[in-house]
């Protein structure tokens, strides 16, 4: 298709789990590459050495600030991309790389890792460790509709992406504490249980219906806060779940 968007995967310091999640869309991923996006950059999947111009850059991993090349690459990614997406929790919030103290072979001096939002402006967050294939799929379809769709599709993509863009504006740190600070202490928690389901390390349990976080287990991925229906709940999108799910499924058929 002529109007395919240019999609890239930029690999900073991450475990490739995010990229595996992209690929875990199986036929959906193939469909995206067939009809909606050319994969113009991906160290793992495409034979391109240097960061090209991209419509959408999916950045996996945080940036090691002692690694000159990474720092240059993330800046170049920003300059050459229309939309920068932090793919997964390391790119969004630092996540597990926050716990690095250096000392690993063969670059023991590489010890400080920052989420990409500390070095460049980021447009969209896809939190998760790893991010779910379904959310990646949804964002990919919406990004295509935003850049190449008709007026209705653009409007839908706009309102769908808005809360994920707001997460990108909100900050570069995450913790179970976000639920304490911005949901529980704010009188918003109603004990639905979502946060516990979304936690990849099962750090959250519910006592008498309210979330308790084992803060030592928390890897700072930001999933619980993003997933909580009382962090954001957009009434112009979520109640349309039936139609929107059909649109996404239709696009990938």
């Amino acid at each position, binding site marked *: 298709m002529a109007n395919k968007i240019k999609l890239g995967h930029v690999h900073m310091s991450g475990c490739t789990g995010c990229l595996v999640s992209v690929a875990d869309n199986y036929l959906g991923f193939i469909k995206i590459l067939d009809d909606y996006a050319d994969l113009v950059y991906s160290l793992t999947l495409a034979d391109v050495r240097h960061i090209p111009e991209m419509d959408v850059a999916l950045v996996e991993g945080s940036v090691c600030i002692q690694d000159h090349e990474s720092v240059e690459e993330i800046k170049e990614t920003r300059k050459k991309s229309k939309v920068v997406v932090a793919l997964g929790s390391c790119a969004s919030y630092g996540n597990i790389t926050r716990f690095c103290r250096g000392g690993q072979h063969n670059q023991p001096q590489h010890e400080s890792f920052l989420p990409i939002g500390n070095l460049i402006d980021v447009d969209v967050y896809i939190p998760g460790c790893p991010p779910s294939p379904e*959310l990646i799929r949804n964002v990919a379809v919406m990004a295509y509709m935003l850049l190449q769709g008709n007026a209705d599709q653009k409007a839908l993509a706009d309102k769908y992406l808005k809360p994920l863009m707001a997460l990108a504006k909100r900050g570069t740190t995450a913790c179970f504490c976000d639920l304490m600070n911005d949901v529980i202490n*704010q009188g*918003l928690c*109603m004990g*639905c249980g979502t946060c516990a389901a979304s936690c990849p390390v099962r750090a959250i349990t519910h006592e008498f*219906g309210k979330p308790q976080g084992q803060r030592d287990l928390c890897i700072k*991925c930001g999933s619980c806060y993003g997933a909580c229906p009382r962090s954001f*709940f957009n009434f112009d999108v*979520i109640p349309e779940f*039936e139609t929107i799910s059909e649109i996404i499924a239709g696009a990938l058929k």
Partner: protein
Amino acid sequence: MIADPYLGKYTTCVSARSTDKEILQKAQDGGIVTTLMVYALEQGIIDGAIVAGKGDRPWQPRPFVAMSREDLLKARGTKYNISPQISLLKEATRSFGLDKVGVTGVCCQMQAVRKAQLYPINMRDVPDKIALAVGLFCMENFPYKSMQTIVEDHAGQSLSSVKKMEIGKGKFWVYTERGNVVTLPLKVTHKYEQPGCHVCLDYVSNLGDISTGSVGSPDGWSTVFIRTKVGNDVWSKAVAEGIFETKPIEEVKPGLELVTKLAKEKIDKNRKTVEERKTFGINKALQNPYT
């Protein structure tokens, strides 16, 4: 398709009751939730359902994944305190290996399910595996200790002697095994409500595939909204097979008028609360999930 600003989108609304006598014995109202889930399980529409079972203390619910009729029946009846149903949403697809998940829960939990479907943040394998979501009407919920205070201090009954609790006709009802019936005016219970419920903008589980509650229908019957294609499929099959008896909602008293009135009361009041939070401090707002 009807789209009501307070009652949400629905294709049909009826008054209904299960025809399964065993389920009805301990159901809260018309046994709609349990009967639907049993039917869906037997038809292979779901592999199991997240329900509010028994917790460690009297009347404390604990979410669990029911995979048999027997399990589903154990969850009958309303527990007026928090059961974090959605904590099992991903677990149901993992530890329990369900491909088709049924979910029961109150309005905010239906909202949580739909958010997890459209914005599956660390919710791998969840969006496409939700097979049937049955929502309850809900004016408010209570923390466990609130419910205990209401029953033990205000109604003067020990929690373990209670057979059923109910909110209806403007009162909180406590029925004990030995036949005591105590009612409390809701103005006594209001202050014990869960604070998070006061920003809740949904009364009749607008986002369920099917939603149900007692309000609007005669005692022992339930008001049922059929909302989505999925909901419509299951419901029409079940009714055709005689699983439920139904009456048009227009033919029962007090009917939709009361449902609408209560929905409006709740949502308007809570909208006001959301507004007031914007000027809670001096030039300081409280968080607003809806912007």
